[in-house]
């Protein structure tokens, strides 16, 4: 126990500042009313769905929970069921064998809901493209609000994508004004 406590004290707090939302990542107009966003606020439940990735994007989603990024401090946490989720974080390409499971997961997520596609493959199908076994981009299967490119996108970019999805229209205009 002594070693453990000493290590905690020695490490201190390493969490860094969270990134800001980035409007250029938005795919379709904001689907949620400001009122709904206010309710979601920064208490957001995320369900991750791997729809066929190479598992590279999963490594970076894991890293979002590392103490440097400390996603939970922002009120964002991963949940075990789509029925508890506000937002789906989907990596791709969507394999043909995962198409049904992804649709069902989307349908099981209560309204209002948001979808963030992660990675080059989630955005476009990437190097796997579309084929007999791959449906390509996540948006080919379910509506996507925000798409985050990268192979894989770094944790800060993933967090930025999530924050963009939940940033409100009023927040958009004020951040545009401040630029």
């Amino acid at each position, binding site marked *: 126990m002594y*070693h453990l406590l000493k290590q905690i004290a020695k490490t201190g707090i390493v969490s860094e500042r969270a990134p800001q939302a980035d409007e250029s990542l938005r795919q379709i107009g904001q689907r949620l009313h400001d009122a709904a966003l206010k309710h979601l606020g920064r208490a957001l439940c995320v369900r991750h769905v791997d729809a066929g990735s190479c598992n590279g994007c999963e490594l970076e989603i894991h890293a979002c929970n590392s103490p440097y990024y400390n996603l939970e401090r922002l009120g964002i946490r991963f949940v075990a069921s789509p029925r508890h989720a506000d937002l789906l974080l989907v990596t791709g390409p969507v394999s*043909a064998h995962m198409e049904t499971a992804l649709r069902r997961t989307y349908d099981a997520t209560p309204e209002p809901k948001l979808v963030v596609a992660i990675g080059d493959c989630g955005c476009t199908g990437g190097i796997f493209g579309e084929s007999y076994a791959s449906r390509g981009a996540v948006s080919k299967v379910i509506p996507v609000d925000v798409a985050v490119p990268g192979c894989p996108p770094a944790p800060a970019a993933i967090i930025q994508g999530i924050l963009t999805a939940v940033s409100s229209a009023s927040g958009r205009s004020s951040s545009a004004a401040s630029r």
Partner: protein
Amino acid sequence: MKDFLPDAERLPGALPAWHASIQAESLRAVAQKAREGKARLVALWASDETTRGAGYAVHLALALPAGLLWLSAPLEREHPRYPGIADLFPCAARMQRAAYDLVGVHAQDNPDHRKWLRHAAWPGGQFPLRKDFDADARPEPGEDHYPFVRVEGEGVHEIAVGPVHAGTIEPGHFRFSIVGEKVLRLEERLGYKHKGIEKRFEALSADEGARLAGRVSGDSTVAYAWAYAMALEAASGVQPPARALSLRGIALELERLANHLGDLGYLGNDVALSFGFFQFWRLKEDLLRLNHELLGHRYLMDFVVPGGVARNLEPSALARLLDALGSIEREVATLRTIYDEHAGAQDRFIMTGQVTLELAAQFGLAGLAGRASGQAYDLRADHPVPPYAELEVRVAGHIRGDVAARVSVRFEEITESLRLMRALGAALPGGELRVAVAAPRAGQLGCGWVEGWRGEVFVALDAAQGGRLHRVHPHDPSWQSWPLLERAVLGNIVPDFPLVNKSFNLSYSGHDL
């Protein structure tokens, strides 16, 4: 190797690898002899040779004491079939099923004839890796029926998990049959991530194939890119520069280190020691950032390229890397003491998810999980190719085969990887980073075999004309480990499954292709 099979021809390249064509009728006899000689089955796959005026072929890669033997058996065009070898090499059963799903070659006497990688994306009777199958086809999705084995009896019930799991993890289906909390049987169903990787290779040039190879399983991108490059370089008769080989070695050890750090963190997390998760993931993040800064990518994707490496490691960058490794080593030593002395964690680790030595040997388990069950195979030591030849890699080992053993192997391998990186860095040769790789001539074979962090990554390459690829088969070590996860969890309680699963940390993408 000539003693084993007189017709075997040495393949080009530094890897001790041979190729032989045999008749399908003698396949079992050769496999039997290999089994008696303690050989392991590395991979089994099939190919369509009809565009070359032949029928089909089934291929085996065997690990023999002298090196790797790639056997090809031609099969007839009508009703291609061969005698199955799953009784000799149990891990072949799923590979034979996959070979049927993709190429339509039939293994006789396979105890299990259910489909494996095929779900509903294409109908039975069509085979995506046949040359006349259009890669862009969108066959009408059919119904997906898969008969799981049912366990019956008083009080037995089933828990169906997946393909979408509760955590951030790849998709697959697990069917547990349990009594109370005890697992009576686990049946896996994989193939959800099948995205047509092998077919995709055939649409790419040999050079472009390197990027795809690096994305077969993202957590092993260096191992795959290296195995692919090794195969292509062998087929082209090219020897990469010494500096590039040393830098590949450093990259492979960095990949091992990053994955082991992450897994050790999650193994702590899964026994409610979240302290371990935060500490190890802090160290992992430090390492990933350094990778990005010094070598251009957090996971070193596209660093290994055919003919060499894409980036240099300048002396100042090397010094920074070695410095950072020193601090990681000190921190890991502290954390190991904490894990070892933590009664709660050890209570969960010890005797959980055991794979006995006998079972591991029977299934040809290699890699990290194999070394935790007394299977002391490590390509870096058994068949060292440059830059490992003079490093005398110390193979980690344990015999208990439980979660605790897989934790110990990871700690030991971190120490060894750090030593190897220091040794490689201290003697980094000068010279070129990359040489040109000419297109191999049609029909030229090459193979790559690399000890990735999870185990042996194997790539078999058969070149086509004009720098294209006739057939590429990437093989993940998870193929050998997945069947043993089903065994490891028997008699354990359901809540320990995530821990057991994490202690293997197998690839779905690398398996489903």
